[in-house]
């Protein structure tokens, strides 16, 4: 399919193009065999496989050099990754090569408990590369296209909106930013590309799985969102079902520009399998009176390091970041937020909630920076941690850098443990111990869950209940 915005091929040309594309791939690149490791040749092959323009290949190669020159981060969690032992690019068909039988039973069971429809289950498990949502969402996409909205996967965007991508990619998060941003820039695949023209307000959330694309399951997603002046968009990524993947490293980059008077809300709920390193760089810049909101839920994975950022560039810009982290056995959630006030009268708010259970570890790591000259700026940070048992752990690392006098910066942190008395109280009303703890946990995250779109809130609560199951005794 030519673009995601079209339900059906508009004419024979598209169908033909589609067929030719596949022919091209199978005939010319039939020799491409996925192999482990990372070097210039592999990066070139990836670029070639995707039939990318030269500038993109050059961007990748330059990024690879940066990646090689950068040390591993020395903070956060322990990253035990052998970069030469990873597949950096799998053809969509290879993703599809996995069968339903390869999916671990506990993942299947969770899908069942969450009541995920059959088709969606296979998609989520990475067994099926496409999720048949096209028919359902077809009319919606047409409507968007008419307004000039671009909503597609980033690979397609490079081919069809090359100028736009070229102008902005790497401008918010340059490859030099950190080792994993460099890695992503070198080997990225998939991700969403969204452009919302001036003044266009999209009333319903755009969801990643509205997209129909084989590369949805990419481990190195590259997402870009450009919200033009006065426009509004809410993008929802991921899903509460566990993301099953045989790959152990996932490293995404998300770049967002929110122009004057515009609004962007980005909601992610990710629930990774336990073997995954999830190292993500997410950053937005907000201009005059614009509002950027990140809502970020992190569950599962072996290690997640993720600190969505908002840079407030012009007066009146606002940034809000809400995050929930749930760390269970063998998991470390090192999550948080960054707000940087670069202009006067900018405002930020961070609410972070973490839950540690069954030996899990969660850390809040946050930066609040107010640059010299950003007079009248306000920042409010609240981070609360709930620890469910003595084996579990929670830490807070707040970094506050204020270079200006006339500002208001507040930071509150709390750590609490589920109290025996609370459990007894709820049990004395007929709740089981497990029901009681999950009720306490859902109450703890409720201030955040109520910010989620309805269906996500419901799923989030169900997910927490599942995470809580068997946590007792």
């Amino acid at each position, binding site marked *: 399919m030519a673009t995601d915005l079209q339900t059906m091929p508009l004419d024979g040309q598209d169908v033909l193009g589609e067929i030719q594309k596949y022919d091209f791939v199978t005939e010319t690149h039939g020799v491409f065999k996925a192999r482990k490791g990372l070097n210039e040749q592999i990066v070139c092959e990836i670029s070639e496989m995707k039939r990318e323009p030269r500038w993109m290949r050059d961007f990748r190669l330059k990024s690879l050099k940066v990646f090689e020159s950068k040390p591993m981060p020395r903070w956060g969690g322990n990253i035990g990754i052998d970069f030469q032992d990873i597949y950096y690019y799998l053809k969509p068909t290879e993703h599809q090569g996995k069968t339903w039988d390869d999916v671990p039973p506990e993942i299947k069971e969770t899908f069942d408990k969450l009541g995920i429809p059959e088709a969606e289950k296979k998609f989520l498990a990475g067994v099926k590369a496409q999720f048949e949502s096209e028919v359902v969402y077809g009319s919606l996409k047409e409507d968007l296209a008419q307004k000039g909205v671009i909503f597609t996967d980033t690979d397609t965007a490079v081919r069809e909106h090359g100028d736009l991508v070229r102008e902005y990619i790497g401008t918010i998060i340059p490859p030099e930013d950190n080792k994993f941003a460099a890695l992503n820039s070198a080997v990225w695949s998939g991700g969403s590309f969204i452009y919302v023209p001036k003044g266009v307000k999209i009333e319903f959330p755009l969801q990643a799985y509205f997209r129909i694309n084989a590369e949805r399951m990419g481990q190195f997603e590259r997402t870009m969102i450009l919200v033009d002046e006065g426009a509004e968009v809410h993008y929802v990524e991921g899903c509460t079902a566990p993301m099953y993947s045989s790959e152990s490293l996932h490293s995404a980059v998300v770049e967002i520009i929110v122009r004057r008077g515009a609004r962007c809300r980005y909601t992610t709920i990710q629930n990774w399998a336990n073997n995954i390193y999830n190292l993500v760089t997410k950053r937005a810049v907000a201009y005059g009176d614009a509002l950027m909101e990140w809502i970020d839920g992190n569950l599962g994975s072996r290690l997640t390091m993720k600190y969505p950022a908002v840079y407030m560039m012009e007066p009146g810009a606002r940034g809000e970041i809400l995050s929930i982290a749930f760390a269970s056995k063998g998991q470390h959630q090192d999550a948080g937020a960054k707000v940087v006030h670069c202009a006067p009268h900018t405002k930020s708010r961070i609410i972070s909630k973490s839950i540690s259970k069954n030996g899990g570890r969660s850390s809040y790591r946050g930066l609040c920076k107010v640059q010299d000259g950003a007079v009248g700026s306000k920042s409010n940070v609240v981070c609360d941690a709930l620890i469910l048992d003595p084996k579990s752990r929670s830490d807070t690392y707040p970094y506050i850098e204020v270079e200006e006098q006339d500002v208001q910066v507040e930071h509150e942190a709390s750590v609490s443990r589920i109290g025996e008395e609370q459990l007894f109280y709820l*049990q004395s009303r*007929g*709740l089981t111990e497990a029901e009681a703890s999950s009720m*306490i946990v859902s109450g703890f995250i*409720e201030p955040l869950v109520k910010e989620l779109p309805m269906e996500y809130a419901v799923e989030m609560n169900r997910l927490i209940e599942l995470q809580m199951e068997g946590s007792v005794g």
Partner: protein
Amino acid sequence: MTETLKIKNLHVAVGGKPILTGVTMTIRRGEVHALMGPNGSGKSTLAGVIMGHPNYEVTEGTIELNGKDILEWDATERARAGIFMAFQRPMAIPGVKMADFLRHATTNVRKPDRKEGEQLIPMREFRKELRDKMTQLRMDEEFARRYVNDGFSGGEMKRAEILQMAMLRPKFAILDETDSGLDVDAVKLASQSIAEIGGADMGILIITHHDRLLEHNTPDFTHVMLGGRIVETGGVDLARELYTEGYDKVRQRHPEDAAVEKEMAAEKKFVSGVA
């Protein structure tokens, strides 16, 4: 046969320290019992141990519900079997709405065999019942949307406890100083409501220092606790004596228990002094 809650020669320790030393009491459905006694004599401990508080260790004696030993049951099972306690100090559960909490609680108590994740009572039916009960207790509808005991005033907490009792319709209810924190009118209303909820159906143990809660709930029996034991049991007259004259006469009549009381109080001071 009338259903009974029978406590026999109950000895209870907390953290190895004996607190109750031989409490015996039988409550039948339909009866009102008043339990009085100075602070620190062990009234709340008795209430907690009947409800199944995990920290209270029963070292001797039994608690039986209709002839069945319930000591091994946890609080969940006891609640589902029809035992209720209105807490002296209810716990706040931030972020959990009263209505959601009550819907879970009510479902569980009415369907004692319910497993986690199984259906709750239908929303409509539940809402209607809750609204009716709240009107009866003259509570604002807004109350149902507030978080459980979070930021409640003392009086609001106690009224919330009565609302819970009204919804759960227990067989046996223990009310631990449910009148404290309420103003005169509110206690009157509470007293009436308790009588209405209980009717002739519920066995009630009312822990109190005052007479107002007993106004519409005339005790069939009054027990006085001192130093971890019930030292006297009488009728409504005993209650009257206690709330008008205090506990000095009781202490004089039971010098040994009064000595234990003193000791417990001193020990407590010592412990808290160290901490």
